[in-house]
């Protein structure tokens, strides 16, 4: 028996059907809605016992700060963490997806995940979407082969480095690293340097701000120091308290209580079943 089957292209990926419409709207002066980006300063460095990742906590929607204390250091595996810059939804979705894939891989192999595995899964995904998934990541972790630190660009290229920065505040942070980084830093020196680099981004870049998050990963385990430093505290209550002006006179007070009106119908028919 022969069947004529119409070959449909596989569904999935992005649909570019509305691109022409968007172009036409743009010509007419309609601007596309802005989306939430993590302007960001994210950094990572390798110290003597492992990897330290750092990030600021400001999320922006155009010129507005939409989240003053968001989490940019995402969990990938018990021994691997990833900082994300770019479109917040993209970084969260992509790290979540790869974290899930790594978990399944761990079950099948019975072994701890390797940083290069996470790296390859991420770069393959990003390359497939040709840069439209706007996620710039700093991936760091410690596995059986030692500590690793990588940067991943939205188009899918990667770098392997001893210290790395990404995001709009990357130049400010890199300036700090380039002058002060040396090999074989201790844990405290490393944390201090990462904090300095993030603070440099927080104070000199508009897209970064608020607090500093740090994650220290070593062979023994990981330490997630959420809000390790808060150089921009927000005081919500005025120390003087609030006082309302007392100039309004009361002329008349009239209180009308609301009365309930319930009618009881005697001998009504029951509802039909």
């Amino acid at each position, binding site marked *: *028996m022969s*069947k004529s089957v119409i070959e449909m292209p596989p569904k999935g990926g992005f649909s570019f059907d509305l691109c022409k419409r968007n172009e036409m709207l743009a010509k007419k002066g309609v601007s596309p809605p802005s989306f939430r980006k993590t302007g960001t300063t994210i950094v990572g460095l390798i110290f003597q016992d492992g990897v330290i990742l750092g990030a600021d906590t400001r999320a922006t929607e155009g010129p507005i700060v939409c989240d003053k204390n968001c989490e940019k250091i995402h969990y990938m595996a018990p021994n691997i963490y990833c900082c994300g810059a770019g479109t917040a939804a993209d970084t969260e979705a992509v790290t979540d*997806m790869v974290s*899930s894939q790594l978990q*399944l891989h761990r079950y*099948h192999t019975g072994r701890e995940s390797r940083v290069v595995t996470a790296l390859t899964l991420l770069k393959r995904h990003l390359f497939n979407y040709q840069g439209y998934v706007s996620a710039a990541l700093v991936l760091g972790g410690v596995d059986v082969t030692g500590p690793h630190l990588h940067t991943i660009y939205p188009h899918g290229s990667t770098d392997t480095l001893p210290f790395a920065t990404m995001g709009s505040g990357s130049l400010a942070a890199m300036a700090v690293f380039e002058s002060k980084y040396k090999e074989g830093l201790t844990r405290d020196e490393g944390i201090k340097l990462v904090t300095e680099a993030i603070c440099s981004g927080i104070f000199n870049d508009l897209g970064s701000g608020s607090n500093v998050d740090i994650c220290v990963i070593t062979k023994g385990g990981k330490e997630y120091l959420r809000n390790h430093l808060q150089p921009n505290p927000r005081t919500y209550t005025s120390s003087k308290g609030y006082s309302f002006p007392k100039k309004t006179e009361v002329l008349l007070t009239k209180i009308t209580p609301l009365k309930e009106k319930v009618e009881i119908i005697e001998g009504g028919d029951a509802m039909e079943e």
Partner: protein
Amino acid sequence: MGDSQYSFSLTTFSPSGKLVQIEHALTAVGSGQTSLGIKAANGVVIATEKKLPSILVDETSVQKIQCLTPNIGVVYSGMGPDFRVLVRKSRKQAEQYHRLYKEPIPVTQLVRETAAVMQEFTQSGGVRPFGVSLLVAGYDDNGPQLYQVDPSGSYFSWKASAMGKNVSNAKTFLEKRYTDDMELDDAVHTAILTLKEGFEGQISGKNIEIGIIGADKKFRVLTPAEVDDYLAEVE
């Protein structure tokens, strides 16, 4: 299954209303190695015989009890390769649930989804039913739970159950010994004694496998050394 000579279902009803393929699948399970599970007041234990075809087989490479999520484990009786396929599918389903709802999958949900997969294979074209019965042990917000899933896709919650070769003796033994307020350690001892009943040869940590999950909600397979300790306590 599309354009092939086997696009009809291989599992068809007999005139007496039975699905003969499923009956045969249950026979395959019944000739597999004994496995059993016991639900205690504060945990669940599952155990199985691990009889290898020859002394030359490296027993450390064989693991019959598998972990589906950190708090759910599973053991089988029947065909090992079919079990591998089911474990893979179940793990993926658990992970997909977690991605969608950001909560660990409840034991009943995972059992239901696994049973649905097994039922699919009794009603699809060109495939045969799975030749395994599973014992799923888990600990979630509803406490410790033990489920048995059959090749037909039906599942039941048990306080204690056994499958495989020595099933009738094992079940009778369990019925006599089971108490509702059993602790996890007692359950492990009872499991070992039940396995010992029908065991041919010398029982040791190398030819049985035991998996436990306690109130810490972490499923783990006991090491051969730990199993030997429990065996010594039982003697």
